[in-house]
């Protein structure tokens, strides 16, 4: 066909099926959703919050890193810092045991305030970080994380120094205590689902596609009319909001926040969670978080049973991290996908290609 027809309206062209949600065709996804929904019937309070609730919260924070790293090619080590900042802001603007610091705003004012401030904080950090690439992005975001940790340690007027802020109030709405186990679990699940679907949705929207274009070839994106740095900063803003949501849930979970919650090793935990799970898909961080939380909770008992020091659970996590990075650079998700592909290929070669 000739290119003179290019600017004529398309007529016989097949209608696109761009908006479809292919993930909804997957029966495994429906099964997982069902299990998560009826979890309070299966799991006791400890498992419900300490294992699954914590997994989902860490998963949300790691999801924000997955969005930046997987779609934008920007490895940010400050995602936990942004979450921690949101947590601190909930404690500072809301109600806590430290009446000299907390302003005592109701939760429905303090929470949006915390989210807005965390988004601004992350966007400013991102605006600094996008001037660099690769390892320098990691260094700058790590420096922001470390600086925030030391700042909270030394600042007593707002962050209450190394003791932090304790007995943070949690919301009571419609006569329900949203920090009691079952409502809190559903609250976390709802926020996690929202974040998951938002990231999934945006990844196919123009903004998300363009971000992946920036990841693949920033120079060409500029030569297609995109302001690459503006796109990167906007990605930080979006990811900061998600991390902020995770941080609000985090502070409601522990009802306190202190410099220990925003330490550099915590920042690195988020990186490990995202990488172990896999940063190619939004489900990866949640899988990584589940592995991390299970190891952290049970490795201690297992190690003691084998006559080893229980504090060595980090050694297990570290070895697991090494193994994943060594054998599957795209995490557990990558292992799973390759296994599925091999399964699909071996029994019948025709069926596999159709599902792609």
């Amino acid at each position, binding site marked *: 066909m000739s*290119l003179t027809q290019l*600017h004529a309206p398309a007529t016989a062209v097949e209608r696109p099926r*761009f*908006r479809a949600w292919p993930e909804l065709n997957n029966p495994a996804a429906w099964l997982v959703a069902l299990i998560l929904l009826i979890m309070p019937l299966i799991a006791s309070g400890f498992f419900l919050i300490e294992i699954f609730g914590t997994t989902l919260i860490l998963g949300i924070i790691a999801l924000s890193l997955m969005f930046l790293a997987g779609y934008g090619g920007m490895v940010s080590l400050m995602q936990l810092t942004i979450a921690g900042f949101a947590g601190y802001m909930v404690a500072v603007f809301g109600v806590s045991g430290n009446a000299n610091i907390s302003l005592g705003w109701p939760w429905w004012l303090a929470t949006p305030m915390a989210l807005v401030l965390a988004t601004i904080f992350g966007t400013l950090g991102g605006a600094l970080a996008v001037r660099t690439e690769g390892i320098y992005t990691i260094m700058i975001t790590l420096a922001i994380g470390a600086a925030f940790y030391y700042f909270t340690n030394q600042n007593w007027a707002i962050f209450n120094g190394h003791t932090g802020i304790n007995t943070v109030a949690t919301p009571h709405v419609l006569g329900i205590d949203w920090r009691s186990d079952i409502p809190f679990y559903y609250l976390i699940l709802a926020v996690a689902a929202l974040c998951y679907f938002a990231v999934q*949705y945006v990844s196919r929207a123009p903004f998300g*596609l363009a971000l992946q274009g920036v*990841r*693949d070839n920033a120079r060409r994106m500029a030569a297609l009319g995109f302001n690459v740095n503006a796109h990167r900063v906007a990605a930080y803003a979006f990811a900061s909001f998600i991390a902020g949501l995770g941080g609000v849930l985090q502070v409601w979970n522990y009802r306190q926040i202190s410099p220990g919650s925003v330490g550099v090793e915590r920042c690195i935990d988020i990186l490990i969670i995202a990488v172990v799970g896999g940063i190619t898909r939004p489900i990866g961080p949640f899988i990584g978080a589940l592995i991390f939380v299970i190891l952290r909770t049970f490795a201690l008992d297992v190690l003691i049973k084998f006559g080893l020091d229980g504090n060595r659970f980090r050694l297990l996590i570290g070895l697991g991290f090494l193994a994943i990075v060594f054998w599957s650079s795209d995490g557990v998700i990558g292992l799973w996908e390759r296994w599925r592909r091999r399964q699909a290929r071996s029994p019948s070669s025709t069926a596999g290609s159709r599902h792609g």
Partner: protein
Amino acid sequence: MDSVAHRLSAVGAGAALELRGVTRLFGALAALTDVTMTVRPGERRAVLGSNGAGKTTLFNCITGDFPPSSGTIRFFGEDVTRFPPYERIRRGLRRTYQISALFPGLTVQDNVYLACRGVSRGRFSFLRPGVNDALMHATETLVQAVHLTPVKDQRVAELAHGQQRQLEIALALAGAPRFILFDEPAAGLSPAERLELIEILTSLPAHIGYIIIEHDMDVALRVVESVTMMHNGRVFKEGLPREIESDPEAQELYLGGGHE
């Protein structure tokens, strides 16, 4: 074609591209020295020269990938010398790359869609395109125009070289281009693919001008009406294709000696 040029200048359309004393230094090395060049709207021109003559650097200065060290560049009368690349692209400038610069992790369709989105509004849109999205139609049409419809859902990393070159061209045709810079579009193409390329270039709407860098004389001289020869970062000679072909100095410099 001269009459077209006269008519255009009569209505005051001016130059599509006007370079005045453009110089680009890389450290002590002058990749371009004092390049002055005027290209009319709709004009099709080849830039010839041996490796290291400064052809691709010229493109990089025009698009802003590397800004010139000195000199001015006007695009349809507007001084774009200090503009970032995306501002020039939004004004109707396009380019292709010598080594395909695509998005390997995305599908063919997504690559073209990004190109269409880049020169229209809604670059930051958080909403997925609907079934009647105009840009989706434009994408389908472009994919079809470069014969890539059968592979539109494949990731670009999986495409054959020739298909990647065609996609490279599709990206440059998105939106409403006014002037295109083609950097060795025929590199690595089979003879059949070269014919297809010539067909695509010659069937471009007449108002779209371009500059083409091409080593293959059969391709280059068939699709242009004027030629600029470059040597060591300077404009060495300008003329009609047949003048350059028969010029002994040009023969010596390029067509005979340095040609791979």
